[in-house]
């Protein structure tokens, strides 16, 4: 039917598979480029195992090779990931490229690989088999996207700090994407070897890495079918040029290069953004009160949630915070005020697990402060927070931002979604109900489909609060939530905070709007030069001369205007 086009069509499939191995790391924001190495290992090891005769008379022997390639690639990725996943961005890229080159050099010099001359094998891979693998991968990524794991990938890509604070295990998510990338690259290596019937180390070089990366980026890594689009485009463009009669050797690469440039410049989300542009707005479901009601009740009023003893943080010789003893009990609305640079944000970064303390210790919701672990453990224990400068997930819709927030109170759904289990659908529906409830609560339900960049500043702050609330926190930390709000918005916010307290959520509020703090808080802590200089009932603290001197100042009359 398609005689004469088999190789072309299979090349598209192989290109897509290679691109998927980049897609999965780019989805999680990791610039990992060691796929050529994983593919080479998968290909070469599979030649040791794949039988030379068809299985049971007619089954392709590559069916043995595919899982072997996947396993080899995954293992290699795991081994490499342990040391290199500490690196980020361009450093990770360099380390992984170095790995790919290392593999190539080792294979070139090894005996069993027949060195630079390579190995010849039977051509067992057919068009159908290559496309079946693409279909399986597309299916996996289609089911992954709107699952809890898929949202964790997206959150880590957009902002690792915020993702961790929303309960996403950043280290594990990065490793998962890395290992998946290795497995897919291993499968690619096996298919490549058994389609062309030949593997040489030079096939797994820098150029292969570049091809895969370009295909993944051109196709777009925000949508599951991006690699197929990218590979189809990059394979079709030279062919179409040829059929149009563009003969000269140098014109092909030039036209292809210009088209690539056009895609990158005008479609930053890749070709797939042409398709997703038309995506419909999310429609709010009916409020599901059962989902909210089924959440665990808040801790009993008066339970100590946070206990800090002599907590301190030094940056070299700078003592950002020292000697802080603090206890926060359930039901408190604790205000923390103080001049800029007083150590307020450092203090809450320690409480939420973003920074380990250098002296002292304590526990937050039963999790001990310390160097080990990460922010996600505190988030899973019931702590949620916003940031002084909004850390929203820029390329996710408002709704998806809030859905990530629901991470700690939902169950993983990816594997169950693969099997279409009804329980996965129920869990996803519940997550959506929780997210919509919070969007309604902050008044953003009519803007759920917008990206954060399209929201006003005040709306962005409210969206961050909604995201934090979706985690159903016992303790909510708000870092200057009213910054940049006008006084009407600030008053609404104060109202919201009080209603949270009524729901039993303990709030720690850092704020420069002293009037708002005095009106909403039940307790007040004042910091200056890294120390707590006063703590207690808000009006009394505000009257404290030390506080007036350090922070509040006096009006023109010499009177303290807050008392």
């Amino acid at each position, binding site marked *: 039917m398609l005689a004469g086009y088999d*190789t072309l069509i299979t090349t598209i499939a192989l290109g897509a598979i290679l691109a998927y191995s980049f897609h999965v790391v780019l989805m999680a924001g990791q610039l990992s480029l060691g796929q050529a190495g994983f593919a080479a290992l998968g290909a070469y090891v599979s030649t040791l195992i794949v039988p030379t005769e068809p299985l049971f008379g007619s089954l392709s022997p590559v069916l043995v090779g595919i899982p072997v390639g996947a396993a080899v690639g995954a293992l290699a990725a795991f081994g490499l990931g342990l040391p290199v996943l500490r690196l980020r961005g361009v450093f990770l890229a360099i380390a992984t490229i170095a790995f790919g080159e290392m593999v190539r050099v080792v294979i070139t010099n090894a005996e069993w690989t027949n060195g630079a001359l390579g190995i010849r094998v039977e051509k067992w891979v057919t068009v159908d088999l290559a*496309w079946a693998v693409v279909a399986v991968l597309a299916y996996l990524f289609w089911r992954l996207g709107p699952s809890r794991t898929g949202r964790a990938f997206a959150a880590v890509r957009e902002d690792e700090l915020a993702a961790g604070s929303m309960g996403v295990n950043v280290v594990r998510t990065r490793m998962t994407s890395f290992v998946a990338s290795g497995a897919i690259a291993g499968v690619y290596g096996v298919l490549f070897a058994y389609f062309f019937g030949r593997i040489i180390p030079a096939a797994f070089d820098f150029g292969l890495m570049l091809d895969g990366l370009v295909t993944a980026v051109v196709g777009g890594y925000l949508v599951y079918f991006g690699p197929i689009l990218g590979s189809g485009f990059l394979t079709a463009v030279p062919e179409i040029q040829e059929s149009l009669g563009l003969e000269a050797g140098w014109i092909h690469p030039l036209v292809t290069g210009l088209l690539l440039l056009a895609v990158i410049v005008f479609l930053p989300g890749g070709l797939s953004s042409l398709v997703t542009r038309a995506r419909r707005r999310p429609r709010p479901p009916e409020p599901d009160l059962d989902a909210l009601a089924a959440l665990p009740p808040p801790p009993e009023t008066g339970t100590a949630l946070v206990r800090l003893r002599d907590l301190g943080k030094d940056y070299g010789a700078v003592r950002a915070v020292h000697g802080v003893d603090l206890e926060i009990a359930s039901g408190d609305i604790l205000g923390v005020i103080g001049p800029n640079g007083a150590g307020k944000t450092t203090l809450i970064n320690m409480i939420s697990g973003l920074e380990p303390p250098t002296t002292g210790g304590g526990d937050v919701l039963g999790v001990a402060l310390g160097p080990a672990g990460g922010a996600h453990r505190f988030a899973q224990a019931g702590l949620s927070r916003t940031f002084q400068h909004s850390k929203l997930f820029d390329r996710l819709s408002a709704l998806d931002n809030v859905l990530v927030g629901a991470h700690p109170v939902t169950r993983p759904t990816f594997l169950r979604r693969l099997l279409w289990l009804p329980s996965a659908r129920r869990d996803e529906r519940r997550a959506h109900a929780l997210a919509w409830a919070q969007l309604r609560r902050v008044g953003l339900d009519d803007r759920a489909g917008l990206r954060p960049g399209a929201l006003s500043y005040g709306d962005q702050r409210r969206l961050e609060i909604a995201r934090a609330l979706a985690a159903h926190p016992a303790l909510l930390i708000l870092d200057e939530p009213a910054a940049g709000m006008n006084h009407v918005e600030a008053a609404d916010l104060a109202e919201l905070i009080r209603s949270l307290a009524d729901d039993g959520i303990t709030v720690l509020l850092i704020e420069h709007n002293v009037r708002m703090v005095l009106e909403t808080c039940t307790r007040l802590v004042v910091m200056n030069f890294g120390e707590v200089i006063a703590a207690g009932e808000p009006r009394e603290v505000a009257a404290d001369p030390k506080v007036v001197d350090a922070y509040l100042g006096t009006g023109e009359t010499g009177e303290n205007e807050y008392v």
Partner: protein
Amino acid sequence: MRFYRTSGALAAAAALLASAACVSEEGAAEQSDDTLVGSGTGADCTIEETVPIGAVLSLTEAAAFAGEYQREGIEMAFEEINAAGGVEYEVTYEDDKTSLEDSVAAFEKVIDRDEVSAIIGPTLSNMAFTTYTDSQSAGVPTVGISTTAEGIPEIGDYIFRASLPEEVALAASIPAAKETLGIENVAVLYDSADEFTDSAFNTMTDVLADEGVEVVVEESFETGDTDFSAQLSKVQQNEVDALILSALPGETVPLVKQARDLGIESPIVGGNAFNSPVLVGALEDASEGLIVGGAWSAAADTTGNADFIADYTEQYDRAPDQFAAQAYTAAYLIDEAVRADCDANREAIKDNLGQILEFDSILGPISLAEDGEVTQEPFVQIIRSGEFTLLEG
């Protein structure tokens, strides 16, 4: 409803997977087209239909240095043949971009889409090892023109080559150099990453052993290397009578230059890669004293050689090299096979290619055996004052 839809999709996917996993054993499709059979034989043969020929060459990227000469050689040969009349050929040129993937795709295109009667190419043995299995299983006679590595004709009975194996060229140049220059001990440098240079290295070692020449230095490098000082300083430390080199042109130029710069004055003996005027031009003075064993020589007094060089130079504005000469010859060999039975079908071409005996070409008398191997006398040349001259003992 949803359940049925889902399970239907799953069943379809399972069916696709099950069928995809099967391997089919398809033999070469026997097809014969009466319109490709003409009347008369030999020079009188007349075939109505145009005979399609495919030429898969490396016209861009790494091996383009050879591919362009080959395209021109083929083009000129078929222009001459078409002008002579009787049989009209149409050649489809495909660029394999010096890559395995594109080479496989190009072979598939000329075999299945253009349905050619015969294929010429590819440029590199590296690709031939994969693509020749395809033309073999499709039953398309294929003539290699620069695929000199060991084991190429053994791929199958549809595979031929008009390219003198490197081993034969070297086997001739080493004894000739020994005889005329009195060489007793040598250094051998070779590219271990290329199929062709690596197999040539094996031949060299055998020939050197047969001739009783001692190898005092043996060093390897890889395609793409640019600095050879480590290998060359070992050569320098051991006084050798000659340096024997198995390399592609890309590495030959810097290596020979670096050797001369280091003060290594001994003659350098090489194979096919040396046999190009471009190389001599690139090397400038450093080319002096290079000894080349090859399939063709501009200085050789073979049938039509002088006309070939003159016409080629006029048409393409540069002197031909061995790649052009061998490609030119391959076109004539195919024409000879077609005219033998006046039949341009794949089977007939294949049968008659294997019967070509002592065909008078610009490479001298050339024969193709049924197993696909070529037989011809190699030419040993030495470069003196920038000119190839035959090295005669």
